[in-house]
């Protein structure tokens, strides 16, 4: 398997991010540059076009209007008249909106990973496991997706790649019981970091959200000395439904932040700007591929730079 998986040559992290997002960047930068060339002054048409560029990045209508309003304000305040310079201001605004505190897990920390089906939870956990293991942390993975076929096997392969232990019960088991055991194991092994994979679930399924709450209760009750961080994984190709996902998961299990995946595609994941605006949930990491090194700490400036 590893031969096939290693088909892509290895590259540095930053190169990967840049490469991963280059298509995105090219198209948008190109669009804005063209705009700047076409428009000699900052008129309504200019802003309308800018609006369309943001909307096409899945930023959403309401947030786009907010951004454009801010932009106009800034442009007025700075007496800016040159379309060329507007791009820089736009980047600043977006980067400002996306500021977040860095995630530095103190020992012991439990990371609970949640999200709708197929967004990249298991893969991201594999990458996180590799990342923190390489930083010298004592990491344990927990396979609390006991629902999806072969989910445990999938995470087991990732645990092997990362060289970290995994706690698993197999298909059909009670996910809360897996978590219970994982917490015990993390305590016994004095783990720095316990990362829990959960089954993908659509946020409008109440009973599945209840199951998630139960998992969270087990962690809070049995591991009070640990810091708990809940990350919602969001597929970068998701549109405005991302806001609804973030809201419901936050209300259910008190999500701390977002991990935005699949940014190696053409999608921009602009809905995270709305999520940050509306729900104050920052982005912590981004996924830019399927290999273990395809994980990046989210940097608002890079993100803004990469999209525009």
């Amino acid at each position, binding site marked *: *398997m590893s*031969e*096939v*998986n290693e*088909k892509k040559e290895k590259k540095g992290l930053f190169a990967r991010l840049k490469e991963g997002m280059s*298509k995105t960047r090219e198209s948008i930068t190109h669009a804005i540059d063209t705009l700047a060339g076409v428009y000699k002054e900052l008129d309504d048409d200019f802003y309308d076009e800018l609006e*369309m560029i943001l*909307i*096409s*990045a*899945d930023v*959403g*209508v309401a947030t786009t209007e907010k951004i454009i309003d801010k932009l106009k304000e800034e442009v007025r305040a700075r007496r800016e008249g040159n379309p060329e310079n507007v791009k820089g201001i736009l980047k600043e605004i977006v980067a400002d909106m996306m500021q977040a505190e860095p995630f530095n897990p103190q020992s012991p920390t439990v990371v609970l990973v949640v999200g*709708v*089906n*197929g*967004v*990249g939870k298991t893969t991201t956990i*594999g990458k996180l496991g590799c990342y923190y293991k390489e930083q010298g942390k004592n990491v344990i993975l927990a396979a609390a997706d006991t*629902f*999806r*076929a*072969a*989910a445990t*096997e*999938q995470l*087991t*392969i*990732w645990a092997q790649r990362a060289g970290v232990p995994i706690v698993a019960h197999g*298909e059909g088991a009670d996910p809360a019981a897996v978590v219970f055991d994982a917490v015990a194991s993390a305590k016994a092994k004095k783990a720095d970091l316990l990362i829990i994979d959960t089954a993908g679930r*659509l*946020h*409008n*399924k109440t009973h599945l959200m209840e199951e998630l709450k139960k998992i969270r209760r087990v962690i809070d009750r049995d591991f009070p000395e640990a810091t708990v961080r809940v990350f919602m994984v969001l*597929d970068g*190709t*998701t*549109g*405005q*439904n*991302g806001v*609804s996902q973030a809201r419901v998961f936050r209300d259910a299990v008190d999500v701390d932040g977002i991990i935005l995946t*699949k940014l*190696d*595609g*053409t*999608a*921009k994941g602009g*809905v995270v700007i709305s999520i940050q605006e509306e729900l104050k949930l920052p982005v912590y990491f981004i996924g830019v591929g*399927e290999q273990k090194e395809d994980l990046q700490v989210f940097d608002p400036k890079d993100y803004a730079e990469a999209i525009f």
Partner: protein
Amino acid sequence: MAFEGLTDKLQAAFSKLSGRGKLTEKDVKEAMREVRMALLEADVNFLVVKDFIKKVTDRAVGEQVFDTLNAGQTVVKIVREEMTAMMGGTHSRIEFTGNPPTVIMLIGLQGAGKTTLAGKLAGMLLKQGKKPMLVAADVYRPAAIKQLQIVGSQVNVPVFEMGQDKPVSIVRAAKKEAIRTLHDVMIVDTAGRLQIDDTLMTELEDIKAELNPQEILLVVDAMTGQEAVNVAKTFDERLNLTGVVLSKLDGDTRGGAALSIRAVTGKPIKFASIGEKLDQIEPFHPDRMASRILGMGDVLTLIDKAVEAVDEKKAVELEQKLRKNQFTLEDFLEQFQQVRKMGGMADMLSMLPGGNKIASEVDEDEVNKSMGKTEAIIRSMTPKERRNPGILNASRKRRIAAGSGTTVQQVNQLLKQFEQSQQMMKQFTKMGKGGKFGRKFPFKF
């Protein structure tokens, strides 16, 4: 909820248009601004929205407003009709070859839901009397083969696999095996891939060349945003899709991607995947999807009911009577029955944007009871009395009250109401052509 807010906004924009016989460009433009917002919020691609708005605007401008509906509703109707047309008909069929095995290839981005869908299709075809076989051609994602094997065993369909061999070799061997073992359908689960990954897209082309599939179905997550257009377009250009399957439609997404995909590929959406259980697959309903994207299924249902319930010819007759001041209790009764046909007052109110609030304040039983009473009273009158309520003296009123299970007081109340209505009607018709009857129910209940 954002959902209701949208419906309200749309209706608010449309309500400004009411009361005119024809729609002007300005009217339509105003309403279209709201439609545009709605579509963008639903994740329809912005270029598709642009085209769509143009189409609808062209059609709506100058459109004669149907008598029984206000102008806004006419616009809504056009919007839905155009959208349903764009969505295409129902195509929930699989093309089978006379020379089995029929090959179905499932392709799409990572995490779209291909493997689960493979299981669902296999189960569905098995039930239809076919003898399907699943083929594991996702050699990249960890445990993908295992996942397909489990799914296959759950639906009692065998899975062909060759581990992490080359996908093209796998499918070649699979086809031989299918022929040998007399399986008449083979469903190939491929690895998720980005449409810009040239190596992996070429791999799909190679698989296609090897198999000559009857069906190449693109599986798309219903929650996909603006990129749905680029994804679908590239997959279609490189592989010439035969259809699309929307997955995760059991979520609360409005699913505008469906419209985007239709617009750029023109390929039919064949199935909707609506849950994690393996029997949760259904034919795709273009009309329902159109309503869902607009977030206004209820308003549209109401319009349908109005069109159904109101007999246009009768409405014209009624208008004539009104003009000649011949509106009688019989007509009054008919009006009531129309409201009834539309599901009763509370039902009707609740379907209107903002009406939910009113409906929740209105005691439905009370309203229906009072409507029922009114009907009963009129029914207890002789035709002569209905046409000429002036002849109703005390003894006639007592008879009517007894016959309808009401009181004389209630009979009087109704007569007074009717008189007021007649008064209103007179003024109404005097206002001339502006006020076409039937657009509103001029009665208070």
